[in-house]
């Protein structure tokens, strides 16, 4: 087991995996809180077309992936004012993106193995160049996320109040989706286009059930994400056949299911229901739709 760590490809995989697990936790927290799960699933599938085009053009797939994912994310951010309409547009664009990726790959000879690599992910293909690109891009994304962290949290918790206070709600929403597309593109190198959203949603959804404070939720999600990725890489390397993306999705589901069934959202609800609305609300308010509606209802009654 420890011998495996001496291989450069394993070191690359573990470094990249750890970076993206932390980034995915921060982004995933907002994805879950803002109900963007479907978008987080669709953006990498559209990015798949870009990666396939990049393979055809002979450039690094992650660049093509990011170009398409970024365009899709900004488009969804602009269109997505109403949940119902957004789901349909997302579904149609996602299918089109996958179809386009299929076209690109069918033009590329010897395509089956490449397709599997892009769709399912792999720990083998991560070069030193990939590690550097991931490190720099993730650092930029994290700095930007920390810069907009407070206003974004406020917009997520209470978009109305945020808009009333003069925060640019629409711009923040598009900016967040653009940063999410960067995180997705970086994670997809190892997780594959089909399962990258597991790394974003899985740890954050579990953490969201266990604690209500945003800071703690993100830390817990990062911890869970790191564990999943490390165990996944270990199992993939030892077995030689298990895809790391399968391991991460199985672990995420195995942890989420008991937490979802056992940890009730009850205490958080009562707590925040009785909390007086005040200035520090946005800092540690419970971000749960149900809680928010209860609050909104109380406010409207007042």
């Amino acid at each position, binding site marked *: 087991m420890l011998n495996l760590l001496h291989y450069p490809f394993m070191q690359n995989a573990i470094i990249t995996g750890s970076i993206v697990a932390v980034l995915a936790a921060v982004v995933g927290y907002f994805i879950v809180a803002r109900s963007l799960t479907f978008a987080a699933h669709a953006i990498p599938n559209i990015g798949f077309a870009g990666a396939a085009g990049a393979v055809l053009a002979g450039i690094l797939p992650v660049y093509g992936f990011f170009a398409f994912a970024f365009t899709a994310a900004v488009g969804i951010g602009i269109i997505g004012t109403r949940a119902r309409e957004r789901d349909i547009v*997302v579904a149609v664009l996602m299918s089109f993106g996958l179809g386009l990726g299929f076209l690109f790959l069918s033009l590329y000879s010897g395509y089956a193995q490449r397709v*599997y690599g892009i769709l399912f992910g792999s720990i083998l293909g991560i070069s030193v160049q990939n590690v550097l690109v991931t490190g720099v891009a993730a650092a930029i994304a994290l700095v930007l996320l920390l810069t907009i962290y407070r206003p974004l949290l406020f917009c997520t918790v209470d978009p109305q109040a945020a808009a009333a206070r003069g925060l640019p709600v629409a711009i923040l929403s598009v900016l967040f989706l653009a940063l999410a597309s960067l995180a997705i593109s970086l994670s997809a190198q190892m997780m594959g286009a089909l399962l990258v959203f597991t790394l974003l949603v899985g740890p954050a959804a579990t953490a969201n059930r266990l604690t209500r404070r945003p800071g703690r939720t993100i830390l817990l999600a990062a911890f869970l994400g790191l564990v999943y990725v490390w165990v996944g890489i270990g199992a993939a390397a030892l077995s030689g056949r298990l895809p790391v993306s399968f391991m991460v999705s199985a672990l995420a589901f195995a942890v989420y299911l008991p937490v979802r069934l056992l940890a009730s959202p009850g205490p958080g609800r009562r707590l925040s229901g009785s909390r007086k609305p005040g200035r520090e609300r946005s800092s540690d308010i419970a971000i749960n739709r*149900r809680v928010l509606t209860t609050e909104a209802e109380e406010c409207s009654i007042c």
Partner: protein
Amino acid sequence: MLNLLASDIFGNAMTAGTIAAVTAALVGYFVVLRAQAFAGEALTDICFAGSAGSALAGFNPLLGMLVFSLTASLGLGLLSNRVRGRDVEIGMALSMATGLGVLFLSLYAHHSASHATAGMSLLFGSILSIRPEEIGLMLLCAILVITSLAIVSRPLLFATIDPAAARAKGLPTLQLSVSFMLILAVAVAMCVLTIGALLALSLLVAPPAAALRFSRRPNRAIALSVLIGLVVAWGGILVSFVGPWKHPPIGFSITSLGAIVYLSAHFAGKRRRGLSIRESEHPGKEVMDEGR
């Protein structure tokens, strides 16, 4: 070129495409009205796990898909009766199913290069290699789906448009929601068999969503949805057989036709005034919050 159109392959592809497109357009109308596109997407991935699993074990893919998707649809049906916060749960089910599919398919593709190519057709469709006995099975499923949908359509429409009033009148909304999910599970399996797990959502969502842009009346919208579905499926297959660019894959031509039709309907179709009335009642606060 004419030889190609007279061949068995073309005839089988057109038959399978027609059956899948009509079923998907009928069921899809309710998917779009009930805002369950994400649940439909989850079912396609559950079918992916089922078909990859049966490829690995050597079963008939349609049977494998039906077993997986019918089982999962029970859970999704129970979830979908709730209004809020369900997308994370659907997402987790989807991710587990995709994970299983990826595991099965990568074990299967590990065997040989021909297996790897066969695995591709699970993802992106295998309408060209569809066999007559599979078409018979599809026809059976289609009859089953359309009959059950016809039976539940009236109460289902009522429960979709105004769930609170439906509940007050004593309609079993939970049972309706679960039985619709079961119907959807079979329809999705048929779409996956024709254009593959990753592209099936296009047949299910694009035609009815485009039709709903033009008409609010259920009967007209459903008829238009079937018509658009047939145009997309036939057009896609024809373009791939005789079109330019050395036969683009059918999955690509169908999904891009679907996207073109939906986007042009989106911009050309009148904004339906009925939508805002219905939305304010239907999923409750969620939509109202979005609208503010």
